[in-house]
């Protein structure tokens, strides 16, 4: 036995122990990418370097044996710098997408590829589980989200994006209708109490996640029912309240307290909440309609867009007459005009300053509004409201033309001189924006936009213990999923706050790639599933849901269209784990990057050279363990590549398909082909067992998700499997279940 010191810790280790072994036996983590105890050491990655007193050089912990009285530092600046450089160099030639563009684009970072893949494999409950890691109301959001995910879906370069939102709605509905609904686990009570102000998408999301973390959560809302803008801003025909009710009930069922009809500043003060609770989340939303600031707009007959929608949602039928003008081009304007149609207005006209191309509303909303008979007047906007006896009479409409693009890239409308017409209307609905009502929150710092100022990473306001998310904070009103994303991230920060930690949300680093022209040529086209809708005639006269939902068959086929952009190894990739741990600057050493684009999915093992970091583990394990050289290193220097022998397909090489190469690969360069319909890139569950296909009884780690066994890994760090355990058993287990 010899005595050594690692990071100030005095240890006694056996002779011939390497520094890496000594450290890991004593719980000291030293990063490594090319080391695996089952294979001879190699020393390529340079990540395990440490400093030892008396040695001028950095030592590779994987290969340096401990010697008596050695004093080792695994965390010195020099060590950290060396590791960081190694990682930055590796990242500079590592090509792939850690996460799919859809998921990265989603403000809540919902794992779209993950749940789409699960739907393709019929794992609906698992799909809901995955969605609920980010979104508390899949059915509702699936219906109303403008789905930024689909805008980034790369399937659009082949034909059209995957109908991600519709799939979310489908699987959400399926869960709501099921006897075996997914109920998220709740951690044991922490004894901490959180008050959430506002029961809209942001507030309920914060409540949902904080409750799941074991905190006591009470949601205060000024309205009669929870749901916020989802309930009072979105018309029934887009989101039936029965669906929303059921999803909100699920949140309540987790143990969240709901207190309705409570308004801060009126019924209770913020200070009282601060006193009574360990943290306060302000998620008021933005409930005031913006004014157009034109003459005469304060008369009777002129109403704000969301005010109008709220009235209708409350079950009132406001008198709007036969001629209704809606000002604005966003989704609220569309909701308002289509609601007006449903209230019986004969002549519904949308006035918009620019043209259809510039309209921020969803295309489908515009299309459906037009089908329902809404008249669109582009390049038109009211410049004056004419009233008689305080009641709306007519609107003076200024004509516009498009000028130079503004900073948003949209062409700026310019008034056309002298081109004004006067048109009579019974009601004018102003749907041009909304802002928060901040009464009762005077104690908090307010931004120039009249929103509550909150730190973008910690969501903290100017008052300790008070956090703000969603429309009420910073940039103001946006889409529901933005508020949901902020609330989910804030819940993690608040949880840490409640534990006395001061952390901020930081966007993780992901490797992302830009694909060249022609990349998508190889994919076969497949038509996107369109959401079936009620015929326009039928929907004009009722608030029945327009979207009819997609069938299971359609959903599965649609899910199969996913291109699986995100890496299947994301949850086990050591490279990305270290890259984030060491806070790499990925662009630091950017230069030529290999783009071989030759992913080979032809056999049991999927190979992707663009993700390979040349640790050599696969090559070594192949030779050392199986005694074959199915894989080898080819070429030199920067262009070195791992290829099957003689560059044959793996199936034609001497590969025994023991799968050891896959199990030692630190990145996604080598993966098992999952014996299922669609390859999954999700975090699986794990069950330890023993392979009984021969009398060796190797320990195994069965990876599964729902009822699907995805793959089998060795059960411990000393085991490597053979083809039977690695691949044959997966099929057997899946077969047994069916």
């Amino acid at each position, binding site marked *: 036995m010899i005595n050594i010191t690692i990071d100030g810790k005095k240890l006694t280790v056996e002779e011939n122990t390497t520094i890496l072994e000594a450290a890991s036996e004593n719980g000291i983590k030293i990063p490594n990418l090319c080391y695996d105890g089952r294979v001879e*050491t*190699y*020393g*390529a*990655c*340079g990540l395990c*370097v440490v400093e030892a007193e008396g040695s001028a*050089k*950095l030592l*590779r912990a994987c*290969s*340096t*044996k401990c010697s008596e009285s050695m004093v080792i530092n695994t965390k010195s600046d*020099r060590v950290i*710098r*060396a590791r960081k*450089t*190694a990682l930055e*160099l*590796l990242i*500079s*030639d590592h090509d792939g997408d850690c996460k799919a563009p859809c998921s990265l684009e989603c403000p809540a970072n919902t794992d779209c590829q993950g749940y789409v893949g699960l739907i393709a494999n019929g794992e609906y409950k698992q799909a809901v589980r995955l969605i609920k890691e980010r979104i508390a109301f899949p059915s509702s959001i699936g219906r109303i989200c403008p789905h930024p995910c689909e805008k980034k879906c790369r399937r659009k370069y082949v034909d059209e994006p995957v109908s991600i939102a519709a799939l979310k709605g489908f699987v959400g509905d399926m869960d709501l209708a099921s006897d075996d609904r997914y109920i998220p686990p709740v951690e044991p009570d922490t004894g901490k109490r959180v008050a959430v102000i506002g029961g809209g998408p942001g507030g309920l999301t914060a409540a949902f996640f904080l409750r799941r973390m074991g905190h006591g959560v009470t949601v205060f809302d000024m309205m009669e029912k929870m749901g916020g803008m989802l309930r009072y801003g979105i018309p029934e025909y887009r989101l039936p309240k029965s669906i929303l009710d059921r999803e909100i009930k699920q949140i309540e069922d987790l143990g969240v307290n709901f207190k309705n009809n409570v308004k801060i500043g009126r019924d209770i003060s913020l200070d009282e909440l601060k006193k009574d609770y360990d943290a306060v989340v302000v998620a008021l939303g933005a409930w005031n309609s913006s004014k157009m600031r034109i003459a005469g707009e304060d008369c009777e007959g002129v109403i704000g867009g969301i005010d109008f929608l709220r009235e209708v949602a409350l079950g009132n039928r406001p008198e709007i007459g036969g001629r209704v003008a809606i000002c604005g081009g966003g989704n609220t304007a569309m909701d308002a005009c289509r609601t007006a149609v449903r209230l019986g207005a004969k002549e519904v006209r949308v006035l918009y300053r620019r043209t259809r191309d510039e309209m921020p509303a969803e295309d489908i909303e515009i299309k459906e509004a037009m089908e329902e008979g809404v008249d669109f007047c582009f390049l038109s906007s009211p410049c004056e409201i004419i009233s008689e006896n305080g009641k709306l009479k007519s609107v003076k409409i200024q004509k516009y033309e498009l000028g130079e693009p503004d900073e948003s890239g949209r062409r700026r409308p310019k008034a056309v001189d002298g081109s004004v017409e006067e048109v009579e209307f019974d009601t004018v609905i102003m749907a041009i924006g909304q802002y928060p009502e901040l009464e009762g929150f005077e104690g908090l710092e307010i931004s120039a936009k009249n929103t509550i100022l909150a730190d973008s990473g910690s969501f903290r306001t100017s008052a300790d213990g008070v956090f703000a998310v969603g429309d009420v904070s910073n940039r103001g009103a946006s889409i529901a999923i933005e508020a949901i994303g902020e609330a989910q991230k804030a819940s993690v920060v608040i949880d840490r706050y409640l534990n006395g930690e001061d952390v901020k949300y930081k966007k993780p680093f992901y490797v992302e790639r830009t694909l060249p022209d022609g990349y998508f040529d190889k994919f076969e086209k497949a038509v996107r599933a369109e959401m079936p809708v009620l015929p326009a005639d039928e929907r004009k006269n009722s608030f029945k849901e327009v979207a009819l939902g997609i069938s299971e068959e359609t959903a599965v086929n649609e899910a199969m269209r996913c291109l699986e952009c995100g890496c299947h190894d994301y949850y086990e990739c050591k490279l990305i784990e270290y890259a984030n741990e060491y806070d790499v600057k990925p662009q*630091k*050493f950017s*230069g*030529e990057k290999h783009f071989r684009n030759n992913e080979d999915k032809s056999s049991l093992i999927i190979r992707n050279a663009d993700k390979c*970091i*040349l640790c*050599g583990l696969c090559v070594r394990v192949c030779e050392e363990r199986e005694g074959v050289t199915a894989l*080898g*290193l080819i*070429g*030199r*220097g*920067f*262009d*070195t590549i791992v290829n099957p022998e003689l560059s044959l397909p793996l199936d034609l090489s001497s590969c025994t398909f023991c799968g050891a190469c896959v199990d030692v690969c630190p990145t996604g360069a080598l993966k098992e082909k999952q014996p299922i319909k669609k390859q999954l890139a999700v975090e699986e569950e794990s069950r330890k067992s023993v392979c009984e296909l021969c009398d060796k009884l190797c320990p195994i780690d069965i990876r599964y998700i729902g009822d699907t066994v995805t793959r089998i890994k060795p059960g411990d760090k000393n085991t490597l499997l053979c083809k039977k355990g690695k691949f044959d058993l997966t099929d057997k287990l899946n077969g047994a279940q069916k």
Partner: protein
Amino acid sequence: MKIVVGEGSCGIAAGAAKVYSAFEKLTEKYDGIDLGFTGCNGMCFLEPIVDIYDDNGDLTRLVKVSENDCEAIIKAVSENSLEDLEALKISKEDEEFLNKQTRIALRHCGLINPEDIDEYLACDGYKAVEKVLKTMTAQQVIEEIKVSGLAGRGGAGFPTWFKWNAARNSEGSEKYLICNADEGDPGAFMDRAVIESDPHSLIEGMLIGAYAIGAGEMVVYVRAEYPLAVKRLEKAIKQAEERGFLGENILSSGFSCKMRIKAGAGAFVCGEETALIESLEGNRGMPRLKPPFPAQEGYWHKPSNINNVETYANVAWIILNGGEKFAQMGTENSKGTKVFALTGKIKRGGLVEIPMGMTLREVIFDIGGGIRDSKKFKAVQMGGPSGGCIPESLLDTVIDYKALAQTGAIMGSGGMVVMDESTCMVGMAKFFLDFTTKESCGKCVHCRLGTKRMYEMLTRIVEGNGRPGDIELLEELCYSVKDGALCGLGQTAPNPVLTTLKYFRDEYEAHINNKKCPAGECSALIKYVIDSSKCVGCTKCAKNCPVNAISGKVKQPHAIDADKCIKCGKCRGNCNFSAVEVR
């Protein structure tokens, strides 16, 4: 009378083989004239060289001989009128090249016939082996080498006795002695010359080493790009076997040792000892982790000793003359002599062997004759891609492992590339990085990707796309690669960059900040302009311009169309009036 043609690779490249066969035909007609050949005497700049020995053994050296000279030479020799050959005789000045050297490793080079063991035996060949086998124990041999202070001549300068001793003390009956003849530095040819010119001195030195460590098998790992060396060494091994110097029970001493050649496929990294062993074993040439060192676990994981050619070539001399005598030469830290391959913008390029302790200035100016074409000396690159450059201000540095290392360069295996004022130092660093990038085996991250990124940064700097901060980033990466690379190739790859940054930082800054190449070499940053006051309108530049970028009337100043110009520099080279300028 004897005519001896210098037939090293350098001589043959200059036409020595043709000269030899011309002599062969002619000597048939003349009696009393022997024809022979020898290796390289180091004066590569004078090849083909023909040495004429009269019957007293006196030498007349003819240089730059062409096959057309042969008849006159034969005539002069047969008529004993060598004074007729005055025009071909080596000049007094060029003779200085050899006079200032001290030759131990090269002691027979250019003197004996490398393909004839008898010529080697005639100059005490294999006497050292005999002495060792008959009168010395292995420990005494190692002791003698220790006294000599001989250090590895491959570049690192590790004490030879120490390695031998370690291998000797390693447990195991099966041991190997390996010669590293994978000389890969651009511009280095010391080992090639020794094997081509005096292969038996290598065999003898290795035999002594094998006896010292207790090896029964010796392998010479020589690059396949050295076909003549391989051929002569093969012949030498065969002859040594026939004479009983190799094989079973050598000189009836009971010591047995066999020898073979392994031709390498030309990967630079196989000059790294553990990569060399991998290659010997039939694997991809990639370095192993050290420890274990080859002395503990080398070839086939048996204790092995590896030295390079020059190191072994000194051994027989040390045994015969004593370690003391060897140690009398040189400095406190560096004993004996060192062979250098002197190349670049130098007047007298070739192979030189000098005692340690001589200054760089003496080697470059006194032996090498200084810079060609009356240009100014700028720097000398020592140690090839693993080494660094040394500027004018440090020319009085003595040749000594420690003193050279202090400059940031290294002794190296002996490459000495001399650069003049027209060499861009950033371009020079890029040249070497290009080399190491291509020669990296790809195993470790710092070398595979670090050298590549360094090369890319240098490329953008010489192309005028350097960015502020590039110098600092480059420097940072250099130190990271030095720290993190697995083997010597990667650890030393940044040296050309670091030394040029140290001594010629202003050139980097000029490229990045002013988009100028001070040496006028980087084509992206220069333009060729004709000075109309100097141009006489001879039209020579216009006629020779490959892209017709030059126009002008006869006897009137010409002009270069910058848009068409491809910056090949031909106009400048062709102008007799120095009218073409680089700006």
